[in-house]
């Protein structure tokens, strides 16, 4: 029996393919710093910390310390409100307070009670979704051009050219495509709960999405292995590379060659390509930039960040600090300024997600 098993062929090419992927992951792994185990029992440590915290909070100087800690979760010196954007363009945000367009001068327009939205390819329209409704809206006037009722709509994404566009969205675990005029709605396939993305720079309608098995597909074609915990997918601006963020790594897929480049960066919650092709990653409190020399930290916040949007000129990155009710603008070109604005929830009626920063006035 053993000889029979040994007769099963191996596959040297598969081994080489796998080694190239595994070697990349090994090269980019983040070694864990080993800590010596304290001889004091963890329960005793916790109890001591709890007593100290309560004592500190009850004393007048302690209260001052607690207040300082509360302040420290945000960026110091933040503007009390969003008076203007640091860069030209229009920002699209959605949340409990609806979908809003923010102009560069800080003026805002509410488009309706939608919870998710995205720009059309040339930012002439917005596609927005509530739970059971998809709508195409003109951002300047707020006029709704068409609506489509479907159950459980999420992740609407608009792609195409000036004259011919498509919108992809999910209902539950199905990806759908509808024409830009709201006609021809079709269920395409099962998909993971990851926003689908349209390939830029092509007149063809090429949609990439993560299928139910965790594999990246371009149209019907499977272009990756199955990945566990896929979270976010993005095209590079030239349409040549797809970046996939998963629970444990970030994978760049070169579409023409099929080659993959993997970074072992755990916990990436969002990723976004700049217009010039730089890839930014959001991980916990930090924003990382992927470059030729590897990954470097661009910015570390005092508390957890959420969402990522590049300015249209690629000079600024915007992220949100929900615990401090702030937005943070981080300059990536022409300086290293960090600008923060507070009271975001008051301005937008709730915590908004960052849906995109598009050119135009």
């Amino acid at each position: 029996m053993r000889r029979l098993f040994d007769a099963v062929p191996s596959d040297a090419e598969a081994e080489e393919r796998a080694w190239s992927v595994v070697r990349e992951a090994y090269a980019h792994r983040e070694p864990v710093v080993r800590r010596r185990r304290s001889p004091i029992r963890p329960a005793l440590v916790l109890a001591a910390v709890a007593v100290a915290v309560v004592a500190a909070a009850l004393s007048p100087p302690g209260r001052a310390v607690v207040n300082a800690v509360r302040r420290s979760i945000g960026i110091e010196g933040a503007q009390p409100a969003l008076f203007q954007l640091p860069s030209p363009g229009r920002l699209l945000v959605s949340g409990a307070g609806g979908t809003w367009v923010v102009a560069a001068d800080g003026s805002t327009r509410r488009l309706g009670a939608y919870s998710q939205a995205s720009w059309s390819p040339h930012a002439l329209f917005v596609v927005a979704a509530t739970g059971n409704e998809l709508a195409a809206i003109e951002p300047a006037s707020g006029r709704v051009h068409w609506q489509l009722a479907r159950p459980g709509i999420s992740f609407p994404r608009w792609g195409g050219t000036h004259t011919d566009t498509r919108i992809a969205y999910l209902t539950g675990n199905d990806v759908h495509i509808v024409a830009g005029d709201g006609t021809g709605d079709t269920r395409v396939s099962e998909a993971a709960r990851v926003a689908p993305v349209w390939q830029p720079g092509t007149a063809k309608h090429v949609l990439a999405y993560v299928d139910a098995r965790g594999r990246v597909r371009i149209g019907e074609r499977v272009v990756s292995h199955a990945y566990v915990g896929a979270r976010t997918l993005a095209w590079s601006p030239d349409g040549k590379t797809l970046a996939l963020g998963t629970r444990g790594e970030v994978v760049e897929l070169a579409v023409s060659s099929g080659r993959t480049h993997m970074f072992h960066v755990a916990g990436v919650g969002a990723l976004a390509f700049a217009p010039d092709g730089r890839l930014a990653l959001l991980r916990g409190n930090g924003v990382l930039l992927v470059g030729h020399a590897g990954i470097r930290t661009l910015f570390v916040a005092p508390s957890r960040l959420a969402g990522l949007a590049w300015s249209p000129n690629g000079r600024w990155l915007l992220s949100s600090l929900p615990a401090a009710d702030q937005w943070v603008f981080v300059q990536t070109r022409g300086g290293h300024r960090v600008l923060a604005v507070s009271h975001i929830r008051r301005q937008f009626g709730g915590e908004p997600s960052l849906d995109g920063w598009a050119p135009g006035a």
Partner: protein
Amino acid sequence: MGALRLDLPVAGDRTERALIRDAQRGSVEAFEQLFRSHWPRAYRAALLVVGDAAAAEDIAQESFLAAVRALDRFDRRRPFGPWLHRIVVNRAIDWARARALRRESFSDVELEAAGEREPSAHARALAEGLALLQPEQRAVIVLRYLLGYTPGEIARLLDLPRGTVNSRLRRGLDRLQEAVRE
């Protein structure tokens, strides 16, 4: 769970334990040696459980990626092989179960596609025989006869009672031998 054996000398004089230590310290050569010494069996084990070359490649590769993620926390006193094989076989069982739901068949064409050389008549018969078994039976047979674990070790690897392992082995082997004889 009792300790499983295998601290194999993998190449030259260097033990697996030394390779893991060096790989944890950042030696890509040591990590490659670990990969090269374990890949063929990991891949074959996956292939024999799932019967699909592409899926076997995915499963074996994902198992090594899991190893990379856990490398710094890995206890060097434990053997690497059983830990890796547990991941490979469990993932392969999951994949095979999911595929069984779609009523696809185990195909020797895929076995051919997997190899750089023509599979022998014996290998073909083995693939056809394995196709008759449940994924769980295939896994136990593969762990026993390809990877060389004892029934007790298989029970610990798969978190199964030893009696279940023995019965799966016995029934699986009977059906497999019939198929191979034919």
